[in-house]
Structure formats: C-alpha cells, structure tokens
C-alpha cells in the first residue's frame, strides 16, 4: 500500500479491544452491512507481521476511546453509529474526509501523522472493501479471491444489461 511509511514498532498480537475499535471504525467508514470477519483478519495479520502496525493500531484505539469518552461513551466500539462518525472526525481531523485537494494537501503537510493513522486503519479497510464487498454491492455475485465456481459466471446477474443511469 502506498501510504506514509510506518517506522519501527515490533509486530505482535492485538488485544481484542483494539480489534473491536478498528472494526467499529471500519464499519463506520464502509457504511454498508458486511461480514466483518475478514476485516478482523486483516488487522490481526498486519499487526502480527508488519512492523509498526500494532503500535499504530493501539494508538488509534486509545485515541478513539479517549474521544468517545469525552463525548460520554464508555468506549468507541460501544458508541452509537452517529457518534462514531464524530469521534473519527476528532481522531483524524480533515484527514478523514478532505473535501478538496487543498484539504488533502493541508492534511498531508500539517496532519501527517493523522493521515497515516487514517490511511493505515480505515483506509486499508476501505481498500479491502473495494476489492471484495463493494463488488457485491454493485451487483456481482462474488469477488476475486473467493471460490466462485465454474457455472454461475455463465449465467446472467439480476442487473445484467441494466441501462446506465
């Protein structure tokens, strides 16, 4: 992934509460009902194998929980959906969703660590979503990487030949 590089930090196992924070953030950013198991596997594997990720994930969880508590929730994962979005805005700043190229440049220049935090957590979850569940949302019956069999692909999908709007 071409994001700001991570430096240092030993790879290692994630605590369950950190995983739950990451999944809550991912679900909030994705905004569609999806099975979160593969996202949990993504975070656990990257923490366990890639230097710097575990520390970054734990920092994210700590910041998100702190911001959630500031807003009156016990933890970020326990916060209702509408407040999670606000918490993520607190944690990531404009890096969460820059509305313009200028905001992206500002985030990249003055909020580099926040940008890194965003890209390496929900940014990567969204990339996994794009390669998997997003295809199903678009009307596909599966995604590359999953065993799709040798019959279904020869049949029409419900939205096949639907006119472009």
């Amino acid at each position, binding site marked *: 992934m071409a994001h700001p590089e991570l430096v240092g930090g030993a790879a290692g196992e994630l605590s369950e509460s950190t995983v739950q924070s990451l999944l809550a953030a991912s679900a909030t950013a994705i905004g569609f009902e999806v099975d979160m198991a593969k996202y949990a596997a993504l975070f656990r594997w990257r923490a366990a194998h890639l230097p710097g990720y575990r520390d970054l994930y734990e920092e994210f969880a700590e910041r998100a929980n702190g911001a959630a508590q500031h807003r009156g929730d016990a933890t970020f994962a326990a916060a209702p959906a509408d407040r999670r979005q606000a918490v993520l805005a607190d944690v990531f700043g404009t890096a969460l969703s820059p509305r313009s190229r200028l905001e992206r440049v500002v985030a990249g220049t003055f909020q580099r660590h926040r940008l890194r935090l965003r890209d390496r957590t929900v940014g990567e979850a969204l990339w996994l979503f794009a390669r998997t569940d997003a295809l199903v949302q678009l009307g596909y019956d599966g995604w590359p990487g999953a065993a799709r069999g040798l019959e279904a692909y020869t049949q029409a999908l419900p939205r*096949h030949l639907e006119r472009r709007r």
Partner: protein
Amino acid sequence: MTAPSVAIVGSGIVGTTIAYLLTRRGHTVEIFEKGAPYEYPPARAFENQVFHLHEEPAWPQAAGDVHGLTQSGSYSADVNLERAIVEGGSASIWEALTLRLMPRDFQTRSACGYGVDWPLTYEELEPYYCRAEALLGVSGTDADNPSAPPRSQSHPLPPFELAYDDRVLADRLRPNGVVLHTTPQARTRHSYDGRPACVNLGSCTRCPIGARYSPHHHLARVVESGYGTLRTGVSVRRLVRHRDGRVGALVYQENGALREEEQSARIFVIAGGAVESARLLLLSADTRMRDGLGHSGGHVGQHLMFHHTWYGSLEYDSALYPGRIGGWTAQCQQFCDPPTRGRHGGLKVEFTSQPWLFRLQAPPVPLHSGQAAIDLLRPQVYTRLVGLMGESAPAPSKYVTLSEQRDRFGDPFAHVHYDATDFDHETYRFGREVFDRLAAGTGAVQRTLADAAHYASGHHHLGTCRMGTNEADSVTDRYCLVHGVPNLYVVGGANFASASSVNPTLTMVALAIRAADTLAERLQ
C-alpha cells in the same frame, strides 16, 4: 558430482519438460537454475495478497548484479522485468493461454512474403502439440472456433465456457461476421493428473491450488524420480568444448560463491529463454568459434521478436459485469491469418476478464467511504478490456548482443535493442481497424486504444537462436541442435523463425517434447 546424461540450463517450462520426459525414460539430468526456489503452490502469497493486502513480489528477485541486462531502442518497457528468473521460470506466474500457431505461421516467407520459413511444418509439429496439450492439461475446444488450426486429437479437458458478458458480445458480433470463441488454457476444467479442478478464484497468475499449470508440477516428479536433480541459485557462465567440437562441460558458479566449478555431461541443453540462451552462446566463444557457439552464420542474438500487444477498452451503456472468472474466456483468432497478411502481421484479439482493481496494490485515489469505493468501481461494470496481440517480424533493428556492463562474475550482461519497424506499424493500423470494427459491432459508446508506440511484449521474447536448415540461415537445425556443435541444443522461444500472433508457450513445449524424443534416441 557424478556426470548426468544431460545438463539443462534453465528450469522453466522448456527445461522442465525435457527433464521430465528424459527422467521418465531413466536418463539422468541435472538442471541449473540461476533464480531462487519458488514456493509452490503459492497459497501463502495468495492469501496475503487477497486477505491481508500484502503484495509480495511475483517471484523472489535475484540480485541486480546477477539478474540484469541493458537495453536500447524505442521499446518502452523494462525487458529485464519481463523475465521471471526463478525456479520454474516465467511459467511459474503465466496466464497459461495455450494456443497452437497457425499453419501459415511456419511459412511466412513462401506464403506471405516476409521473414523466413521454419524448417518444419505445422503438420509435422501437430502430434507434438497434442502431447503438449496432454502434458499441460489444456482445457479447450475448437468447436466454436472456425479459425482454429487442424488437430488430430481433441483437447484433454473441456473448455472454460464463455462468460455471460462474453456471450452478449459474441451475439452482437456474429451478425457483423466476427466470431468470439473460447480460449484454450492450461488450467483444469476438471481435476487432471494430480492437479485439482479450478474453482475460479480469479487470480490465475498466482494460482494457490495448482489448477493452473506450473513447471513445478513436473519438476517435483523429476526430483522424486531419483534421476533428476535441480540446482537453484547457480549461474552458468559458459560452455567449454573439446577438440572434437563437442561441449565437454559447463562452467557454473553458485551465485554466492567465490569460485567457479565445472559439470560434464553427454549432452547439454540451453533452455534459458531467448535473451539468456543467446547470451550463453555468445559468452562461450572459443578459439574455433571466436564470436560464440553456433554463431558462424552471425545469427545468434539476431531476429529478436516480441509479441506486440496493444491494450484498449470498450465502454457500454448497459451493465456487463466482466471479471466474474479469472483470466481469459473469450478471444478471436480470425484475424491471425488475414488475406492482407504480408503488408502487416496477423492479429489475435483477447477480451480479457481480469478485474483491473485486483491487480492494483493501492487505490488509485484515496478512499474515504464505502460509497466512494463503489463509485470508483462502477465504470468497470460497463467496460471490457481488449488486448490486440500483433505478430512482429524479424528485423536488423531487433537483437540481443553482449552488454558493456558486467554481472558479479565479470561476464557481460545481455544487451537488448528493439525498434519497431514499418511492418509493425502497419500491423498496428490493421489492429486499429479491427478494434473499430469490434467497437461498432458490439455497440460500444466509448473506445480507447493505446497508440502504436505503447505496446507490450507480452513477455514473449522469441527468435534469437532460430531454427533453420544450415548455419548460413540459422543457429539450430529443426531438432534444436546447434549447428557445428554436435551435443548442444538450444530449445524454446529462441528457436522461433516467426513470431505468430498467438501465444508461444504451447509451441515451445511442443518443440521441447520433440527435442526430448531426439535426445532420448541419442542416449540409447
């Protein structure tokens, strides 16, 4: 080390085929591979790629001072990156399309007025094509392809049927006189020869279950037979001849070692790809062949041909949902041997099914929400990628020679020079006409095609040790034996006298089987 009957340079699909067939008959072989071992099947790398977004290199790269070349001319891609120097070679990571050349591909001089004829015909090679298809486990049919060359046996496995979106396009093209048909490929429609059936994971170049053929399937059998050994991480530096003209030994060096060693054998086979095979002949110059083995006619390294490939896309106003099966299902061979051939080369058309997003390591734009990801993907639903695979012809502007730069052992790297010719530009113009016809026939609302200068080689490097009738016109004879060196063979894409517009690997394997038969006879 005990001398094997045959020493083979290169563990790719050609070297492995020869090794496998010889060891089955009880002959001993030793394979020398410059690259590193490859984890096969690459299940771990697949899982990391798909589920952990961790893209590993397609193969373990050798150090730059071992695996390198220099390059000049107008070809814009890095040829060095097109060569998988690794155990199993490029077929460790190939897309496994296994088509036969067209009969007239063997007679471009006499039938079309350009290039040279091969010293063998399609009819002579046809039985070996059948054996190659059986060896690789090719799934396919000619029943839907009126342009398919004649065959004496059906494919060993049934075809991968057209995808639904392929059929939609095929139905639109048929009234326009264009036939879109299935694609023969070396992946298993059913389980075959110990390989499992394909389950459509969609990542054919990194097949985690071995459904797509890889030389590793047979390399393992070579080693298990007890007749074959494989040495990886070993660079063969030159061949040394006896006074009688025969090669007595190859000189090799482990990539991390300080001194070189020799290995003798009765017969030597170079199967290192078109670039490295030519280089090794040139590096083996001696007092009687001062410019290189087999080079008395000046042909070693000459006649280099790429498989010129231009990519385009066709966009439609209704949803096609391409990419539901990995790799390729639909293609068109009816332009491979057109009546106008001679003014330009033939052309094969591929409608690829590869989802482009899956091949990216990172999002092309930052993603801020699930909806943004969906919006990024949506155009893919309406778009088909099209590949135009053009036949190139040999020319003085396309060759391999020795570089001024040297590898870690002090040997010159290969130098590749490649400039497209007027013939190639005419092939592009022909391709453009075909592309426009496909766009109009399928009702595309938008079309985009790379310009003439932006072609890929298909990673198909051909022709540098071409076969012919004598040393005045070629490097090897029709059985891949190097002219003037009675126990040295060069086998593979290097032998091609013409490039064709279809993928070359099945032909390389057919030539390897034919050469293996010859070797086995000699070893009796």
